């Protein structure tokens, strides 16, 4: 299934890109997706959103999901 990935802030610098599209097997989790795009472990305080809702790395993905990885927020 196809998954769209977005990276923000320092995560974008680390990954060397702002977004990418990945093909992975059905029932993959966010953690599986991370393993498919990089061999590095996910930084400890990484925040994860699936379809613009916060979630955890155990979240099981569906075809067409948009997954975002980013560092702690610093707005306001």
């Amino acid at each position, binding site marked *: 299934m196809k998954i769209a990935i977005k990276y923000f802030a320092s995560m974008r610098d680390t990954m060397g890109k702002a977004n990418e599209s990945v093909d992975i097997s059905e029932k993959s989790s966010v953690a599986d997706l991370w393993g498919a795009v990089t061999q590095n472990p996910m930084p400890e305080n990484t925040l994860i959103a699936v379809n613009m809702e916060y979630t955890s790395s155990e979240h099981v993905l569906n075809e067409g999901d948009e997954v975002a990885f980013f560092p*702690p927020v610093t707005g306001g």
Partner: protein
Amino acid sequence: MKVIIQDGEFDPWKAVQEYQSENIADGKHGASVTFIGSMRDFNDGVDDLSKMYLDHYPGMTEKHIERVCEDALNKWDVLDAFVVHRVGNIAPNDAIVLVAVWSEHRAMAFDACRFIINDLKHRAPFWKREANEDGERWVEGNTVDEVADQHSDMAKRAS
């Protein structure tokens, strides 16, 4: 209720005055509390900040803040809430964020405004990148404000 994510300067006092005159019914609110966050020219030991860039997650940012405002309206019986948040390039002294809340009585307006800005600082997907003569860096957490929040909470409990 309105949430605006904006690339480009804004005058927060003018924005809130205009929002109020167009959206808030005459004579029904007794209290309005406004928070405005501005860019300091110093932060966490860096004392010559020359500029800042604010990244965000288009779509999720708006959605997240709108939900927080709805939560605040429901939780505190608040009449209305209005948020403006800058993104993109920001200069020292620029307003970065405006949170305005209207209610019948003052306690609810204070609580709801503080709730919205605290969530916005901790959960809304924005990231600051600061620049000074030594170069640029992504800001890592609102450390000083966290300490100040905790200190204030402790003082409140102690008093």
